């Protein structure tokens, strides 16, 4: 039995939830798992795995902007980010001094690695997408990623290998030899499972992501959803606003849904309307949904790129929240030119393979 330290980033819940199948697999093999995280990521994993040990391990402040101009704020944010990474390195030293670990798994936490303990990194972004005007910075970021990946023995990419079935497109394409040597394409990893239930819900709207853009999208969609025919459920993703819960004949608004409730609703939905965040995309791929409408968070270049990429591939329709016309965009999303994702191996198969081909080497 080995002891694994796993540390997901707390920028949204996506990093924590995609680690759930990996943690389950490690526990199935009777390994001891210590989870070092903070905020909601820590809360979700504490709820999911009461048998694990937990350490509160602060990460980086989120650089999301209230305006469309995410990038300038992000650039100005670099010094603060560096200070947070420096603190993270010191805190990690203290954690490693207190306990013996056989493997460190860092989900997008740049400072979580050791030169003496095997360390692996999980990311779907080997390549950052920036507006074209910043192309020299994009090239520099490729080199920087190569340097960062060099700190790890393996870089686990929750995507299919580069090629026609790649869900992250250029984001998961290795740009340097350092990254190429280490990249392991595990296929999608998500905690959402396919259930054997009827698809009896016409639309599931999932409003998520950082404020204040989450609230702006909520306002836009609540205003337009009345124009849709058919049954719909809107998940506001905002547990503090329980007073906003209401139900009309065809539409139910839920402030918050538990992981299980959300999983059930996603399975029941014929069409999903959500942000083009990579976690949601992996969930849709796992469930094999054919119809979805993506609305990228303004200024988040990763989501904007994925929306554009899926349009080009003819997989799903996307629209900016500023130009959204829900009935018309839903009609477009159902056009036969949108085929949905190609069939991809499911999480269960992927995580079995990941364990056998990568993790077992360090643990057995």
């Amino acid at each position, binding site marked *: 039995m080995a002891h694994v330290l796993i540390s997901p980033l707390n920028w949204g819940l996506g990093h924590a939830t995609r680690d759930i199948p990996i943690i389950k697999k490690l526990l199935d093999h009777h390994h001891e798992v210590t989870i070092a995280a903070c905020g909601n990521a820590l809360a979700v994993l504490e709820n999911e795995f009461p048998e694990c040990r937990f350490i509160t391990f602060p990460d980086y402040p989120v650089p999301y902007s209230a305006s469309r101009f995410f990038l300038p704020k992000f*650039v100005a944010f*670099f*010094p603060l980010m*560096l200070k947070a*990474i*420096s603190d993270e*390195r010191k805190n990690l030293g203290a954690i490693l001094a207190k306990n013996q670990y056989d493997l460190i798994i860092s989900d997008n936490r*740049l*400072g979580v690695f050791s030169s003496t303990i095997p360390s692996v990194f999980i990311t779907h972004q080997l*390549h950052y997408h920036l507006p*074209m*005007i910043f*192309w020299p*910075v*994009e*090239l*520099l970021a*490729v080199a*920087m990623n190569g*340097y*960062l990946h060099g*700190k790890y023995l393996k870089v686990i990419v929750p995507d299919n290998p580069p090629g026609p079935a790649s869900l992250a497109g*250029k984001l998961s394409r290795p740009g340097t030899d350092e990254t190429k040597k280490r990249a392991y394409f595990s296929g999608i990893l998500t905690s959402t499972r396919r259930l054997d239930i009827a698809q009896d819900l016409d639309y599931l709207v999932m409003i998520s992501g950082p404020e204040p853009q989450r609230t702006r999208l909520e306002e836009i969609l609540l205003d337009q959803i009345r124009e849709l025919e058919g049954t719909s459920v809107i998940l506001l993703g905002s547990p503090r606003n329980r007073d906003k819960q209401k139900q009309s004949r065809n539409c139910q608004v839920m402030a918050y849904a538990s992981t299980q409730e959300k999983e059930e609703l996603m399975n029941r939905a014929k069409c999903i309307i959500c942000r083009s965040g990579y976690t949601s995309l992996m969930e849709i791929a796992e469930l094999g949904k054919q119809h979805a409408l993506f609305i990228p968070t303004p200024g988040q270049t990763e989501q904007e790129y994925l929306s554009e990429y899926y349009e080009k591939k003819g997989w799903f329709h996307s629209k900016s929240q500023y130009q959204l016309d829900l009935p018309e965009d839903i009609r477009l999303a159902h056009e036969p030119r949108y085929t949905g994702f190609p069939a991809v191996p499911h999480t269960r198969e992927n995580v079995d393979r990941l364990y056998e081909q990568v993790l077992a080497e360090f643990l057995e």
Partner: protein
Amino acid sequence: MDDLVLAGAAGIIGLFMAAVVLLYGAYSIAGLMYAALVSREYGVMLIITATILAAVSFYMAAGIWLRSTDRI
């Protein structure tokens, strides 16, 4: 100090220095243009404008080429 933090600090200093050089360059060119305008040297103004346009076009063309060939 940790080498990751040192590399990050060097990268940030490099980025900010590049921004300062860029801003200083823009300021110097604006000064040259103003001096040429005051002294009515329209030929010099034309050369500076053409050089700026050529540099911007080259920069944008390089970006478009990198994107269209899937390098970035």
